């Protein structure tokens, strides 16, 4: 048994006290996490492994920028923001860069709503904001947005990228739920990450989604953890020593060794289930002949990254300790699973592993995984500066356009931070707040740096000031924010037309798949329409079908056309790039596929009957917000065209550049055009009287789309456009189409 050195213990206790003291002084507008989210016991996971001597120990600007005076936590986020501004202005003065003026209130409202609520403000929110006293309205808005449900969704989207959440991947939905719940309940960030790293059992613990997302492949974990949680690229070192950086393959495997007892099992019957248990022997090996599996050995966990603070605990790389934890529902559940008919039911396991599982199930399922607990403690512990640097830098980059270290996932001595003191101050305040993400966001948006305006000039002229954070860069809304803003500006979240106002005729061909009469009764119990017999989609968009033309859509169905009609009408009237696949739809789809597999067994008894069907449908448009859709969306979906990443690989960036397909969808797609069209149930409807001047309607269109009123020149141009429309309704639709497609809509003020 390894023994902990008393001195090291003290150090940790001291660090813990510091955190507690910090959070006690920070104002906490949010209730402490409820008991269900109580912190995991960290005591058993004290780091005891020896870090590698790091090549960059000498003269690393990340570590060796001594602050002028020792850090003292600020009393609140606004005070912390002033400290950050002081560091920014000092740096700018040194570089002789003049700060740009702060933006006005309306621009601030729009910028902050996009960054904190993930969408532009409504006209009503604008009115309410402007009705507040001028001195306090900005601070109050920050508070209001931080407490809103939209903020939870917005920060979830931010974490979608960091955690590379894929709804269609194993555990993706669960992980997303975990993140959303963590943010809603303001779980400290370090605790959130610890739970993901130490999760075990089944997806009943949704944090488990993180471990099983990549394959699951525990050998991929060092790359994921280092890049996403620490901002260090060591992924190349999985296969070879890193070509430009100092990471070796051995270091990669030493980090992987923290997962050497993490075993993932699948069960396919009666239902697909995946669970993680503690292996009875190390499953990660390392040696000269990695690829043919010969002459490899076990490798012990070793922390490869530089730590701060004194006294690393020499010697005694941790031997795995078996830490019994109390029997939980999860443990019993796995034991029950493992006792089942494993030979047929478990996929991807050879017989030996199944036997192992059966043998180990009772003994090991209730054991925690001490190596992973150690890793979680190392990663989130106070001596690992990368942990806080990474998250504050990512959020700073998200809200100010570029990271203090940029690219955000490339912390190394050769890529120094632009303003080391700023990075350290952000990290210190964040850690002192108790890893409080809302505190971090409030601190960032309360800075003057966040509220600077853009400056004119060529990109080269602007660059120095933008990089010193004394001028705002040109920043396009993220895909989800742009998508949700189109829905907000166009009143598309709820139907905005009266029922029956959008009746269209839809014509399509149904190929019914019927069982021959003798089996008819059996078939009637099955209840799912299926779209296709393969993975080529057979239901296709048919915009022109609504006018009665075309209509070659083929639907394979077990039921009569009338029965499936309700389900397919929405599909038929949504062009492919705007088709919405919600989380619930995906589960439905999976159920349908398994139904189909069953049904194929009676293929001999089916016949196909084609029929052309015309139905009338109300296509009153409404759109789900991005947070309600699968993520990432299908490859040609508008969200993806706007830059939503695939999240399948490490190092993906959000692409804010335009592409032809994106432009086509915004020009001709259903969403923007429906957003432009005026509905009878939205405020604009009251201003549709052709006999009155158009000014009021034009002002409302600007307020809804741009969160401001038009200039006199803009109003005149708009009036001409509206007049040319023939009638007020069409004219305003034309104006709104222009406003939604123009640069000002998609770029932040």
């Amino acid at each position, binding site marked *: 048994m390894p023994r902990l050195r008393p001195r090291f213990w003290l150090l940790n206790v001291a660090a813990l006290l510091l955190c507690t003291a910090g959070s006690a002084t920070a104002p906490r507008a949010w209730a402490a996490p409820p008991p269900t989210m109580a912190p995991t016991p960290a005591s058993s996971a004290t780091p005891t492994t020896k870090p590698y001597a790091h090549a960059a120990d000498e003269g690393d600007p990340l570590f060796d920028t001594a602050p002028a005076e020792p850090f003292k936590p600020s009393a609140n986020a606004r005070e912390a923001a002033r400290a950050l501004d002081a560091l920014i202005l000092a740096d700018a003065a040194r570089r002789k860069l003049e700060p740009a003026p702060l933006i006005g209130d309306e621009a601030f409202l729009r910028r902050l709503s996009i960054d904190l609520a993930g969408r532009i403000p409504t006209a009503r929110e604008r009115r309410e904001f402007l009705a507040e006293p001028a001195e306090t309205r900005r601070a109050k808005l920050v508070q209001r947005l931080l407490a809103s449900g939209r903020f939870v969704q917005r920060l979830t989207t931010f974490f979608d990228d960091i955690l590379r959440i894929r709804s269609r991947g194993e555990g993706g939905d669960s992980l997303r739920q975990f993140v959303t719940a963590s943010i809603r309940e303001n779980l400290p960030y370090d605790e959130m990450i610890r739970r993901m790293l130490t999760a075990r059992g089944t997806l009943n613990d949704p944090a488990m989604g993180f471990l099983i997302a*990549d394959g699951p*492949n525990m050998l*991929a974990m060092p*790359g994921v953890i280092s890049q996403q949680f620490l901002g260090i*690229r060591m992924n*190349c070192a999985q296969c070879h020593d890193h070509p*430009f950086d100092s990471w070796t393959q051995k270091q990669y495997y030493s980090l992987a060794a923290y997962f050497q007892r993490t075993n993932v099992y699948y069960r396919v019957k009666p239902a697909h289930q995946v669970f993680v248990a503690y292996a009875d022997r190390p499953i990660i090996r390392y040696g000269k002949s990695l690829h043919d599996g010969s002459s490899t050995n076990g490798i012990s966990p070793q922390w490869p990254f530089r730590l701060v603070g004194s006294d690393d605990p020499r010697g005694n790389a941790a031997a795995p300790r078996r830490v019994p934890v109390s029997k939980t529902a999860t443990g019993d559940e796995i034991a029950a699973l493992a006792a089942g008919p494993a030979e047929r039911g478990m996929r991807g396991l050879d017989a030996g592993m199944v036997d192992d599982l059966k043998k180990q199930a009772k003994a090991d399922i209730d054991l925690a995984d001490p190596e992973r607990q150690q890793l979680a403690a190392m990663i989130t512990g106070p001596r690992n500066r990368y942990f806080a640097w990474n998250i504050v830098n990512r959020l700073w980059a998200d809200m100010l356009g570029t990271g203090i270290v940029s690219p955000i996932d490339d912390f190394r001595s050769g890529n120094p931070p632009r303003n080391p003191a700023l990075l350290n101050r952000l990290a210190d305040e964040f850690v002192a707040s108790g890893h409080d993400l809302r505190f971090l966001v409030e601190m960032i948006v309360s800075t003057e740096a966040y509220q600077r305006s*853009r400056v*004119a*000039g*060529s*990109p080269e002229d602007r660059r120095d000031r933008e990089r010193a954070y004394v001028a705002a860069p*040109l920043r396009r809304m993220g895909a989800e924010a742009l998508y949700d803003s189109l829905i907000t500006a166009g009143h598309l979240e709820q139907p905005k037309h009266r029922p029956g106002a959008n009746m269209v005729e839809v014509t399509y061909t149904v190929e019914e798949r019927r069982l021959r009469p003798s089996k008819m009764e059996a078939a009637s119990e099955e209840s799912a329409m299926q779209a*296709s*017999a*393969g*993975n*080529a*989609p057979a239901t296709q*968009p*048919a*915009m*022109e079908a609504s006018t009665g033309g075309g209509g*070659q*859509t083929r639907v394979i169905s077990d039921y009569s056309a009338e029965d499936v009609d309700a389900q397919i009408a929405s599909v038929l009237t949504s062009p492919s790039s705007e088709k919405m696949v919600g989380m619930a739809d995906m589960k439905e789809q999976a159920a349908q596929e398994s139904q189909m*597999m069953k049904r194929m*067994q009676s*293929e001999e008894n089916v016949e196909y009957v084609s029929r052309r069907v015309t139905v009338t449908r109300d296509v009153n448009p409404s759109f789900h917000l991005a947070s309600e859709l699968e993520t990432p969306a299908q*490859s*040609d979906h508008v969200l993806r065209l706007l830059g939503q990443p*695939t999240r*399948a*690989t*490490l*190092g993906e*960036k959000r*692409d*804010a*550049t*335009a*592409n*032809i*397909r994106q*432009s*086509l*969808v915004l*020009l*001709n*797609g*259903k969403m923007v*055009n429906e957003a432009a069209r005026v509905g009878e149930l939205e405020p604009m409807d009251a201003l549709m009287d052709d006999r009155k001047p158009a000014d009021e309607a034009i002002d409302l269109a600007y307020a809804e789309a741009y969160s401001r009123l038009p200039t006199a020149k803009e109003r005149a141009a708009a009036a001409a*456009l509206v007049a040319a429309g023939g009638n007020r309704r*069409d004219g305003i639709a*034309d104006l709104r189409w*222009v*406003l939604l497609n*123009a*640069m*000002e809509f998609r*770029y932040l003020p």
Partner: protein
Amino acid sequence: MTHAAHRPLTFSRRDILRAGAATFLGLSLQDLVAFAGTDRPATADHVILIWFSGGMSHIDTFDPKPGRPVAGEFAPIKTSASGIEVSEILPRVAEQMKHATLIRSIAGVEGAHDRAAYHLLTTYRPTPQIIHPSLGSVVAHELAPGCDLPNFVAIGGRAPEASYLGNACEAYYVGAPGQPDPYLRLPQGVAEGRAQRRLAALAEANDGFASGSPDPQLAGTTASYDAALRLMRSPALAAFKLEEEPAAVREAYGDSSFGRGCLLARRLIDRGVRFVQVSAGGFDTHSNNFSSLRRLSHDFDPAIGALIGDLAASGKLDRTLILTLSEFGRTPRINGDAGRDHHPGVFSSLLAGGGIRRGNLHGSSDADGSKPAEKPVTPSDLHASVCHALGIDPEKTVQTPLRRPMQLVDKGTPVTELFKA
């Protein structure tokens, strides 16, 4: 981050040739593409990839095993190429065999759908580290477009991401061949005059935005809108109007989504599109393999037969390479549900045109269609052969955004025997 920063940084001989020639000889890109790779003249300019999603049984289609217990329900039939027989469910393909080379020794390794599809389409094995682009993106990256249509079109099924080759090499997805793409037309209820007014006002609004601050992002957005409008008005869009084809032609391809897809592929190639992928699904026949295949063949057999025949008749087959790929083959053993299961060990691929030998058989599987017997061809070799036909160097490397060098094809060697001497 601008798009340029993501672009791979290497230059091929062709890039240099193109740049130099365009400067000094004044040749058009079209001319240059015809000359591409002087040491290895291209024999093809276009590719049509037919993708059998789900994994098509090789024994019941291209590699019959008459007289063996594994033979299944279908009898072999003669084809127009002497000595080559295929399954009775492929009568129309059989008629065109004189134009084609049949490879019966494709050696796969991946037995799960997603992984196998990834491997067959990209030549790389899936890894969590990186996404590899598929053959269509590689071709779109290497060959300049011959028209203002997208250079890589995927019909009826999606293609993998273009990943590090960039947005411009992404497949343009056509879900419903034969139906107009709603995004290429003005929205419903918006007539041309009204659209003109909107676009004029849009241009004016954008002029006023950040006018003192030229920016590559804004310029890119404007350029993209302009390109979109050009595409909407391009005469080449007529390619999508299948109704322009004589009824007899449409009938020959078949009244099915896949048939229309093949016809659209031909029309796109006619106008200069480099790479078209047409997907057919439903081949995952774990049960009722024979009745399912027979039904599916009513769609894919006439379509493929018509496509080869059509291109041969017009002479376009000389410069267009058609190939079929499947995720894997299916087991020789017939299971209890009259189905066959996944079998990556050996399967078949049909190639025609673009310099490929005609009426030719390459490689074989063993007696029961279980393993390659002669001349195994890996998916990488097959991709390398397609590159060879197009004059693309399969070993050319491009760099990922993290500056990792990647070969266009993973360790493939062109199979020169496939080509005419």
